């Protein structure tokens, strides 16, 4: 059945068997329960949970804030990646190492820290309050937290592509008379767009599902600062499993579509920009 790449190496059945068993127990069975559970709902029940005003408000905030965070990261993350690859400056290694902090830091730690900083009496919040800008317990705070969460994604997807970009292309453009700005817009940027889009999509997807970093700073006010993951949690705490499941299914479908989009994007870009073999 399986054409082994080599007949010599042992362990195929053992490793594949173990892998499938593990996956089955840890992933597939739990995942399938969600769909089974969904089928126990009637359409009206499903619809009530998924399309209630409270849920719609949560969708809006989740998508809006995640989008804002991902866009912010796309711009500034790109700049961070650019400076890390192209320039020298004191503290560069430190910055490079710390880019991954949002990955490594537990989300609840991030959550309480951001809240403390941006609360009305916090380190930054206290300067914004007199200006009427409310960050903690407001949508803006959610966007800030989601920006934090997505920070490494754009930087780490753009960085390797930038590093691999051969300087010869820029030199060629220069010999052909292009200014630095023209070279950037016409030669460098197009080569980076796929990576940037991928980073954006990853940051967006991560932000959509984020819980720990936002549960503190948002304040969880239904219809105002409630996000979809918080809504799900809320329903679980009230043992409304049906409602929670319904909303979760919608989120899963969206995440799946995003993942699919990212995969397609990567395949398209490698086909378009990849080096062909010499004929």
């Amino acid at each position: 059945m399986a054409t082994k790449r080599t007949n010599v190496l042992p362990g195929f059945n053992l490793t594949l068997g173990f892998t499938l068993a593990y996956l089955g127990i840890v992933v597939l069975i739990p995942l399938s329960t969600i769909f089974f559970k969904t089928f126990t709902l009637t359409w009206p029940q499903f619809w009530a949970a998924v399309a209630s005003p409270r849920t719609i408000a949560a969708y809006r905030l989740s998508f809006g804030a995640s989008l804002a965070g991902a866009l912010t990261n796309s711009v500034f993350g790109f700049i961070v990646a650019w400076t890390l690859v192209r320039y020298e400056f004191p503290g560069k290694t430190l910055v490079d190492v710390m880019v991954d902090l949002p990955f490594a830091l537990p989300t609840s730690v991030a959550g309480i820290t951001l809240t403390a900083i941006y609360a009305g009496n916090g380190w930054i919040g206290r300067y914004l309050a007199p200006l009427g800008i409310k960050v903690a317990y407001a949508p803006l705070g959610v966007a800030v937290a989601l920006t934090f969460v997505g920070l490494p994604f754009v930087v780490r997807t753009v960085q390797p592509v930038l590093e691999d970009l051969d300087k010869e292309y820029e030199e060629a453009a220069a010999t052909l008379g292009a200014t630095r700005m023209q070279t950037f817009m016409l030669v460098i940027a197009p080569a980076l767009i796929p990576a940037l889009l991928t980073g954006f999509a990853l940051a967006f997807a991560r932000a959509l599902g984020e819980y720990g970093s936002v549960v503190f700073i948002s304040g969880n006010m239904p219809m105002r600062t409630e996000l979809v993951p918080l809504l799900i949690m809320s329903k679980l705490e009230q043992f409304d499993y049906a409602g929670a499941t319904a909303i979760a299914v919608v989120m899963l479908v969206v995440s799946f579509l995003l993942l699919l989009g990212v995969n397609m994007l990567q395949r398209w870009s490698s086909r378009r920009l990849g080096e062909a073999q010499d004929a």
Partner: protein
Amino acid sequence: MSIELRNISKKFGDFVAVDNISLHIETGELVALLGLSGSGKTTLLRIIAGLETPDTGEVLFHGEDAVDVSVRDRKVGFVFQHYALFRHMTVFENVAFGLRVLPRKARPAETEVARRVHELLKLVQLDFLADRYPSQLSGGQRQRVALARTLAVEPKVLLLDEPFGALDAKVRQELRRWLRRLHDEIKITSVFVTHDQEEALELANRIVVMNNGHVEQIGSAEEVYHHPANAFVYNFLGNVNLFHGRIENGRVFLGDTAVELESTHAHAHPDETGKAVLYVRPHLLEIVLQPNGKQTFPATVKSINPAGPQVKVELVAEWGDMVQVEISHDRYQALHLEPGANVFLRPKEQKLFVYQI
């Protein structure tokens, strides 16, 4: 446009890439910078282009100092070894690039751009590929597109960095001939970098042989091949045999036989004693069956390769060195050579190059 380089030097860290080189290139010439990796040839080319700044020295285009002229204002066409075609643009867009980035006032209308692009693509015989992407082209096609792209902005100088290095042997030969014809047609001042001496000998009006950052010799193909200035040049261009001999009281010996030196390239002083190295080209040695008074050296045939325009015979000289000799097929038939045969070698021209070590 003529190019003048005066006292150019360039270091990278501790590594001296170019060591005080001066060079003059006439308008319309096709000059080769020939040397091994690390000889400084690519660095020199990039200095001419403005892609590197020299530590000392001047670059003059048509007599005018180019030191403050940035690379984008120098109007040099640069062809890279790996083409550097913009992967996300079609062939057409690549060639049009230089025209489209011109400042507003100088920029031609799109119709004019299209006309020029197609003209150039026809010149390189690739008009039918205008809508393809570089990844869909073969290596040879990509290089021709790269060339068309540089020609689009009408440069005064064409610089090529090992332009055929990444291609197969056959494609390389075709493109070489093609470049020669192109240069004859357009007559643009061209400088190209190569480590392939065959390529340099075939293409260039003049060859600049470089080694370790300085110039060993500048001359036409004929000059550097037949009248090498020193051992390096002799060794680098064409095949060569290397003999180990010795000098005693100013006379050079290979084995037990004294070598008569009529060559003007001898570098042995009459009073010296020590080791010597001699160079002879394979086709400048004759194989004879008997010594006949003129200078001959005993050797034993090891192997014979008759496949090719000449017959290649490998021998072991009496003093131990391996020797390669090329003789015509007629001569080979006449000699009835076989492996193991004891014969004599005789230099055709008395042009042994002797170098004391």
